[in-house]
């Protein structure tokens, strides 16, 4: 009999179904991956297993069957749940050390020598040993996730449920999180259920479950799943009723083109084809007016930002050229967001010179004239929750003094081109992240800027929506000739940039085209490996 058995579990919310008739089995020491787009039921199933939400069906863990949160109380001592969201379970005003103390206390963990040894081991694994006195609110995103994980592990749970523990976490921290997880399951025989948005991580799992439309649509080892889609993946070729993404074409009907090796993310594209949920095609029309641009759109010389004694950005030089997509990469807390905020004037510049569109920026007045030419999408999409998509866009159009008839025309056009026309009268909170992301960009494009600053626009967005997003950026560059500065944690996305800049602890450590970087790192199989090699050097 398996250690964990989930039978026909359904979770219903007031208006929709979270997950329908899900079943799974897990043995001791197994890592099971939950993979799928946003809102496909991964979290619902995790909440049901953790016994924090009402469900239909039966779950048996270690011979104890439960059908409701109340019955699940009996096994809660064995469970560790880390819900989705960076630093969600942490208290900003408590230090790292106080967190460990608190989690041990509420779980009534016996605090003997063995406990302290284990606690120190976890701290060491998470690289947090030196930071026990730091307030959680002052940790970077990656550190918060590692702290959340070790807090969840502190009582040695036998059933570990981790909901997107690595989303928004940089590749290095992600690697470390997985090492912790791997050690624990080997030493303790823990079952780990892990959902992730990074397909590379699926390779480290014993079994993956594919989620779509509130159902589990496929189960098995990753290689098997990838093998299954092989017949549908072709090299890029013109076709109908098919998908062409990132230089590959996917079709259920045979195509007159050579096959190519599928990647992990391709599973989603083939699945979209199978469930006949073709994503809306992205188009970009010509802009209303042509603008003459200088060759160098943005130039930063020795830009520096300090927070007290902490240097967030240390003398950074950077150039953004006309019609270029520049990727700004780095671990959590490397200074990416701070840099963008300095460019936008959201943080005052402590030192250095900044030139935007050929004008030196010295005061707020200098910026005022440029506001109409810059578009910005923040990490959290600054949308108004109480306004519908349409109302949000009209509001932003008003802010930029776009005449109403012109505003309505442009909003209608973007809605069609970027594929969110059907959601125009919905509230942002009820929409998938991918749709919110595209309409946030539409809001930033309304005034037809010539430069676009995007701060982690793709975090937590599913593979298909991300592919569409990049298609949109590519078209914007091609049709409008605008320059884009983008930060991301998906190293595979770095490859779509013209040039990348790598930041580490506030310093620039690399600035080159993707091609050149591959040349200088001949052994690297993916961009992730290049990134890690830079980070490991003189670490």
């Amino acid at each position: 009999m398996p250690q964990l058995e989930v039978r026909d579990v359904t979770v219903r919310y007031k208006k929709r179904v979270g997950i329908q008739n899900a079943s799974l089995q897990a043995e001791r020491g197994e890592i099971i991956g939950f993979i799928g787009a946003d809102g496909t039921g991964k979290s619902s199933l995790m909440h049901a297993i953790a016994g924090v939400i009402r469900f239909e069906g039966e779950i048996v863990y270690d011979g104890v069957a439960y059908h409701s949160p109340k019955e699940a109380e009996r096994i809660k001592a064995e469970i560790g749940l880390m819900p989705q969201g960076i630093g969600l379970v942490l208290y900003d005003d408590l230090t790292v050390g106080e967190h460990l103390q608190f989690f041990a206390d509420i779980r009534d963990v016996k605090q003997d020598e063995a406990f302290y040894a284990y606690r120190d081991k976890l701290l060491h694994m998470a690289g947090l040993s030196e930071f026990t006195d730091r307030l959680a609110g002052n940790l970077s995103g990656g550190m918060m996730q590692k702290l959340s994980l070790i807090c969840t592990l502190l009582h040695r749970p036998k059933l570990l449920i981790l909901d997107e523990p690595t989303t928004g976490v940089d590749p290095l921290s992600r690697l470390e999180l997985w090492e912790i997880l791997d050690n624990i399951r080997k030493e303790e025989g823990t079952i780990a259920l892990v959902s992730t948005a990074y397909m590379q991580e699926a390779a480290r799992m014993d079994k993956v479950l594919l989620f779509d439309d509130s159902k589990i649509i496929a189960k098995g080892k990753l290689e098997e799943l990838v093998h299954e889609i092989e017949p549908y993946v072709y090299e890029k070729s013109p076709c109908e009723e098919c998908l062409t993404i990132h230089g590959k074409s996917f079709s259920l009907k045979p195509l007159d083109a050579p096959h190519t090796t599928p990647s992990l993310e391709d599973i989603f594209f083939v699945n979209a084809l199978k469930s006949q949920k073709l994503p809306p095609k992205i188009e970009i029309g010509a802009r209303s007016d042509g603008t003459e641009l200088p060759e160098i759109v943005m130039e930063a010389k020795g830009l520096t930002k300090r927070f007290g004694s902490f240097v967030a950005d240390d003398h950074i030089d950077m150039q953004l050229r006309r019609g270029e997509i520049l990727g700004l990469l780095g671990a959590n807390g490397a200074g990416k967001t701070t840099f963008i905020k300095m460019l936008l004037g959201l943080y005052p510049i402590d030192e250095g010179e900044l030139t935007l569109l050929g004008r030196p920026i010295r005061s707020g007045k200098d910026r005022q004239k440029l506001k109409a030419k810059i578009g910005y999408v923040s990490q959290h999409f600054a949308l108004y929750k109480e306004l519908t998509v349409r109302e949000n866009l009209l509001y932003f159009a008003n802010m930029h003094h776009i005449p109403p008839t012109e505003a309505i025309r442009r909003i209608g056009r973007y809605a069609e081109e970027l594929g969110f026309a059907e959601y125009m009268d919905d509230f942002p909170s009820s929409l998938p992240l991918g749709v919110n992301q595209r309409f946030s960009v539409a809001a930033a494009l309304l005034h037809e800027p010539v430069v676009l600053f995007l701060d982690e626009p793709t975090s937590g967005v599913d593979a298909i929506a991300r592919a569409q997003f990049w298609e949109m950026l590519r078209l914007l560059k091609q049709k409008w000739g605008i320059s884009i500065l983008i930060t991301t944690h998906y190293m595979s996305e770095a490859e779509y940039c013209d040039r990348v800049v790598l930041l580490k602890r506030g310093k620039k450590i690399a600035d080159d085209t993707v091609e050149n970087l591959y040349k200088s790192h001949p052994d690297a199989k993916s961009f992730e490996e290049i990134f890690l090699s830079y980070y490991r050097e003189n670490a």
Partner: protein
Amino acid sequence: MKTRTVRAFALKEFVDLYRSRMIVMVYLLPVMILVLFGYGIRMEVTHARVMIIDNDHSKFSKELVAKFEHSKYYNPSVVQIPEKEALRSIKQAKTDALIIIPSSFEKRLLHGQKSEIGVFVDGSFPTRATTIEGYIQGTILDAASEVSARMGMKPKGMITLNQRTLFNQAMRDEDAVVPGLIGLILLVAPAILSALLIVKEKEKGTIFNFYASPLSKAEFLAAKLIPVFALHSLNIFLLFLLAVYLFDVPFRGSFMLYWLSSELYILISLSIGLLVSVITRRQVVAVVLTVIITVIPGFLYSGILMPISSMQGESYIEAHLFPVMYYNHILYDTFLIGQGLASEKIVLYLGILVVFFLFYFAAGTLWLKKEMR
């Protein structure tokens, strides 16, 4: 219930309250309400600007004017101007009241004839006008009775007033307002804090630490409510000291009764906060809702604005549905009267407060679910 767990959780709440500076609010809010309202609410009128036109210039009329001049309630000015001009002065809000003593005032009185004194009061603030009117009436009657006693005559229609104010002999506003404010503060402040402590975890997401752990509902509630209870218990003493030493309110009853009934009242308040935190998800909503459901009854039915006994119909019934009326009765007793437990009414009201607490606490506890909604 594992005491170690509860202690650890409660300790976390203290640390959190301290580091987020919320602790300042716990004590600043009550002191501010007491000081602002304690000084701000004024029912009595002093230094009313009274214009007197004396057309008689007799001994009697001068004696009457002197009465006004020697009272702290008036700022009189004796003038010789036409009536019309004096009335205009009221219109311009330069004068609160006008008193006209007719000519041959003394002569008529000595002859035992009826005499009329003209009194005009600015009625733009009705309560203020009524108060001033009452004062003037009293002053005139007082003067009249003095004169008549001295002359040994009993003129017809002359009333001797024998007014006495009970319990608040000095007629000081502070005595009437400050204890009522304590009833308001101890209803509002603990409720807001306890609502915030739970909703904050819901909003942030840390509530998962409770949902997903073996922590029981009783342990969670104890950990959340004990800090609020402990911190606000200190306010009972703080408010007492402010009332007695800053506002000079007398304290005639038993301190034990004041203290224990206040602790009971705080329990009611934090149970209300608990109820609010069960229904709301956002801190802002929780605060606004708590303020609405505690401040309005806390103020209306506190007895500050209007005595409950003089309420009628719906307001009388409503007043009995909120705990503030019962507690304030006990408060006023301990401060101004001092009957204490000898009064059956106070024992009954204590019992009613216990029922309030049990009801709210049971409702909040049963409603709180250890699962997502």
